């Protein structure tokens, strides 16, 4: 009860100098806003990275044809496809720790159904794709080995494509045309949502590797067995590094590359890329934390300053309170509560501002916006702590005043 009254009277003292109080709070507001935004953006970024790893599949490397420079000329990856599905089979067969090697081809395609059509990406894949990407069908079934072998003209639709072509109807066993080739729909993929870059990963269709290579994509896959790239999935993260070395060895052998000759392929460790991104998200968080700490400090000094001014201005009031029976500790707690109320209001404003900023950043970056309860509690705690620690010295000065001297002061 006493505390509530003390807070109420602190509020009225703060409101008596509303503008000054607001300016004083600014440091805390910015500091807390930085903390909130930091935590939200940091965890947003980390979530994004996690999601990226999850949507790609864990412990993944990708083998792409052609190296970055060849004889000084920069060639786009895939410009000259040197990889084949036999390479993928060899990787699967011979490299320790590999659980899946998924060769694929890809291209753009217009998919036409009875009454509508939809432009999307088409992938020719083999059965390892599903385990490598940890991606299964939601309804229907995946390709069977027979269909794969024969290159049957069957197709799996991503959620977005299914919805756009068939609405609420069941697309299974319906026929869609891609480049005038009729494909029978045998399944609809589970939803993967947006990718890191805001791409709709469900806007996609899958056909058997051979069907894709021969019937619809073709362009860069002149050689019969060429593939665009190969996803390689390892059992454990620790298998990836040695595995990449072994794959390099294997492919050089298979492609008859010797001595000083450069590789005609490149391998990237996708998990490592994700981890690097996660690390840089952490660095960003640390930087924001430093900003937050500095501005909380500055905010605290601001509060100390204004409380000292306030104690000086209200010396007579303090004298009067002492004269009617306030104990030194009553005066101490009055000013401490005032400083803490000031900083906590600043903290609350900061939470609002920080949450707003985090939301704006999340909207711009297409991240999930996360303002955690923990961050809010931490911010409130921190700002109260700032108020108490920086309000203590002024409050103590007030409490040490001599009643008669305080009353005499003008």
């Amino acid at each position: 009860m006493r505390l509530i009254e003390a807070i109420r009277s602190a509020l009225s003292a703060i409101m008596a100098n509303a503008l000054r109080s607001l300016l004083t709070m600014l440091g805390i507001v910015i500091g807390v806003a930085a903390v909130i935004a930091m935590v939200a953006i940091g965890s947003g970024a980390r979530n994004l990275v996690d999601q990226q790893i999850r949507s790609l599949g864990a412990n993944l490397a990708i083998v792409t044809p052609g190296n970055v420079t060849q004889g000084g000329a920069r060639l786009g990856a895939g410009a000259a496809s040197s990889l084949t599905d036999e390479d993928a089979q060899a990787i699967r067969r011979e490299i320790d720790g590999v659980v899946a090697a998924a060769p694929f081809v890809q291209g753009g395609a217009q998919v036409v159904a009875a009454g509508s059509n939809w432009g999307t990406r088409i992938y020719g894949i083999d059965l390892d794709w599903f385990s490598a990407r940890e991606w299964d069908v939601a309804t229907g079934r995946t390709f069977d080995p027979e269909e794969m072998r024969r290159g049957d003209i069957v197709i799996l639709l991503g959620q977005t494509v299914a919805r756009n072509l068939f609405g609420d109807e069941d697309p299974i066993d319906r026929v869609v045309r891609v480049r005038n080739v009729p494909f029978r729909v045998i399944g609809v993929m589970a939803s993967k949502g947006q990718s890191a870059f805001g791409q709709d990963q469900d806007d996609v269709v899958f056909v058997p590797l051979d069907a894709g290579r021969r019937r619809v994509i073709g362009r860069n896959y002149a050689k019969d067995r060429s593939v665009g790239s190969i996803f390689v999935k390892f059992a454990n993260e620790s298998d990836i590094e040695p595995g990449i070395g072994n794959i390099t060895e294997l492919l050089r052998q298979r492609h008859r590359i010797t001595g000083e000759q450069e590789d005609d392929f490149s391998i990237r460790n996708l998990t490592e890329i994700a981890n690097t991104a996660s690390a840089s998200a952490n660095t960003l968080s640390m930087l924001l934390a430093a900003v937050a700490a500095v501005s909380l400090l500055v905010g605290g000094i601001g509060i100390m300053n204004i409380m000292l001014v306030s104690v000086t201005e209200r010396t007579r009031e303090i004298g009067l309170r002492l004269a009617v029976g306030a104990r030194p500790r009553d005066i101490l707690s009055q000013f401490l509560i005032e400083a803490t109320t000031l900083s906590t209001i600043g903290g609350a404003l900061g939470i609002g501002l920080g949450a707003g900023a985090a939301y704006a950043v999340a909207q711009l970056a297409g991240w999930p916006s996360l303002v955690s309860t923990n961050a809010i509690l931490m911010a409130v705690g921190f700002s109260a702590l700032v108020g108490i620690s920086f309000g203590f010295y002024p409050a103590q000065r007030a409490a040490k005043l001599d009643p008669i001297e305080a009353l005499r002061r003008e």
Partner: protein
Amino acid sequence: MALIETRDLSRVYDLDAGRVVALDGVSLAIDQGDFVAVMGPSGSGKSTFMNLIGCLDRPTGGHYRLAGTAVESLNADGLARLRNREIGFVFQQFNLLPRVDALGNVELPMIYAGFDRRTRREHALQALGRVGLAERAHHRPMQLSGGQQQRVAIARALVNSPSLLLADEPTGALDSRTANEIMALFQELNREGATIVLVTHDAEVGRHAQRLVRFRDGRVTEDRRQTPIDARDLAPEAAE
């Protein structure tokens, strides 16, 4: 037993410019129910004396007992308690909190006495009623006349039912008509049993007090009883 008893009470200021003896060995006893007017030229030590017996200042020498308590032996909290429970102080400059209404100002001593909100409100309204300001309870000091402000200050001094009411030139900032009203109020409070020590420059007021104490150069130069203490309301042991 006297309510107030000072023995060789002195207050010396050690300034860079030299020693100032503001109070020079005052021995005085004041009984419960008395109305004492303190007079004397400017700088004679009247305020110094009031501040000492009001426990706002500490003496540099001598002894002081208030209601049986040896004040010198008290720490800051003990002094605060005395100021809160035993003493009501009325200042020349009113010293009201400007942002708080009359009721809130009167409640202030009760906050530090630890009363709950409802009791405070009740007693504060009663005290305001006693000084004739019940209707002004929710006015702020700025919205009150000087006389009314001093009445609020008197209500504040009364609210914890102290055994001693001290007033240092309570009418010094008021015009003479208002001053007379305030003095009448003090006399009424005294008739109701309050022990009052009041500093004044007004000889008329001095004549109406039951006892007149005159200061000069930090000493008591005259101590005259003008009217016997009305003993009706006193407890038997205090009456002696």
